[in-house]
């Protein structure tokens, strides 16, 4: 079993009003040094191992998990710790 983490971020140039609001709140708290905040998301999957695991995860990202029009993604795979 693999633990798959998919980090999804907005593409450069895509406006992120949520990030902007976070940046302004950080400034309000006195963290003036924050020049930009951008919000993404992280999706964790537990995936059975197979010969095409990486290709299939890429497919999952392109078809559903991320929207290539507005988002980039990065995938990391690690051994899942069996509980």
């Amino acid at each position, binding site marked *: 079993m693999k633990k798959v983490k998919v980090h999804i971020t907005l593409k450069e140039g895509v*406006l992120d*009003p*949520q990030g902007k*609001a976070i940046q302004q709140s950080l400034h309000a708290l006195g963290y003036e040094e924050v020049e930009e905040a951008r919000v993404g998301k992280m999706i964790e999957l537990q995936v059975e191992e197979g010969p095409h695991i990486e290709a299939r995860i890429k497919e999952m990202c392109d078809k*559903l998990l991320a*929207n290539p*029009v*507005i988002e980039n993604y990065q995938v990391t795979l690690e051994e899942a710790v069996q509980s």
Partner: protein
Amino acid sequence: MKFAVIAFPGSNCDRDMYRAVANVLGADADLLWYETANLDNYDAILLPGGFSYGDYLRTGAIAATSNVMQQVKKHAAKGKPVLGVCNGFQILTESELLPGALLRNKNLSFMCHQEVLTVKNNQTMFTTAYNEGETIQLPIAHGEGNYYCDEATLQELIEHKQIVFTYQNNPNGSIENIAGIVNREGNVLGMMPHPERAVEQLLGSADGLRLFQSLIHNWRETYVANA
């Protein structure tokens, strides 16, 4: 001409849409549940607004993976009309039936009010009853209506006259003030404002009515006149 209105879990404008075509226009229409819908015998597909699947992951993303959207793709490929309003528009971009994506409104707020739109293209099957450049009033009701596409796609939209409606006072930050676009073939229209909520003066505007009237008129011209 027979209309299908498709309801997903979380749709909330399905009955307004059904009522606009069935009651106000007196057209033949059915309200279909997405799981059991068979679109074979329908001429036009209407994807209503709402919050399908609670807007999980991205607006429209989960609905786009449903079987009924595979049917909608086949229907669209035959050149038959598909209209997506609000969440319906979001589902159409997520299904790649229309280019681009809908982002959070620039001011992060859900907005619900009347907007003034300009009819940019009155040569589509959805808009022939309007004049080019005419201003109309339709309500908006969305939190994620900020249309975005890359520069190359935008140039294509402009070049092929795919921008159908624009906002006069852009409420959500959408690129080029876009409120609604059609696909290159002109048979799939997606728009954030709600024509189905503006079909009687009592509702504050009847400007949405002509969109459905255009569709019925042009369908008759194409299919009935030649039959």
